[in-house]
């Protein structure tokens, strides 16, 4: 069995920088012989985790650390920011009915990550927020 492959990257606050991580994800998949259609949901998970982190990173230490550990069967995605943290329990679960007619149409990231992943963990404190996602690829 092929050894897991790892990728670590530190992302600065630059528009669309999440695409660099997506490129890395695609390269790892290609290396492991994983078909492109099997990483579609992982692409969305990576994108959502990173844009969430970039939003909460703040200005003092604004970079976001991303780490992938990937085998042919699964990927673990770790995304960490160094912002002030937040209480994930206080984030309301969004619904389309509630968003229609509301000024605030965003706020879907956590819901998507929970729904699309096979395991989702979030740890948040005053030194930042760490999201760990597992996604099966088969």
């Amino acid at each position: 069995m092929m050894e897991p492959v790892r990728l670590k990257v530190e992302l600065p606050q630059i528009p669309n920088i999440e695409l660099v991580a997506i490129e890395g994800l695609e390269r790892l998949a290609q290396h492991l012989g994983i078909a492109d259609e099997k990483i579609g949901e992982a692409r969305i998970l990576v994108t959502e985790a990173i844009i969430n982190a970039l939003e909460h990173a703040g200005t003092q230490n604004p970079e976001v650390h991303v780490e992938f550990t990937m085998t042919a069967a699964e990927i673990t995605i770790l995304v960490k920011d160094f912002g002030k943290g937040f209480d994930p329990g206080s984030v309301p679960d969004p619904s389309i009915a509630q968003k229609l007619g509301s000024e605030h149409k965003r706020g879907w990231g956590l819901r998507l990550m929970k729904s699309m992943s096979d395991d989702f963990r979030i740890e948040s404190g005053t030194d930042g927020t760490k999201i760990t996602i597992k996604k099966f690829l088969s």
Partner: protein
Amino acid sequence: MEQPFELTSELRGNCLVLTTVGYINNVGGEAIAKECSKHFSDGISRVVINVERSKVVNSIGMSFLIEIIEQLEEIQGKLIFTNLDPAVEKMLSIMGLFQYAGKEATVDAAVRSLK
């Protein structure tokens, strides 16, 4: 690397067909919403969005589509997505967009269903 966002727009009868290429982020989502609004003021109320060449999207970009649905609800219009990547389809489904919008395999099928 995913291509930069591009949007093309054409009218097929009274139906607006939008085709996206590349990453649909906040900029892409806003561009789609603006293009729709422009045509809504001209009396168009049927929209097809072909996302075949947008494999990377984010929820902020997709949130702008809720604005489009809101405007279409006011004018009794309809929105159909086509050529959806399965992962993007799942994302839109989780967001509940298919409670208010349709999906078809191709643009031709969508335009036919809107006639």
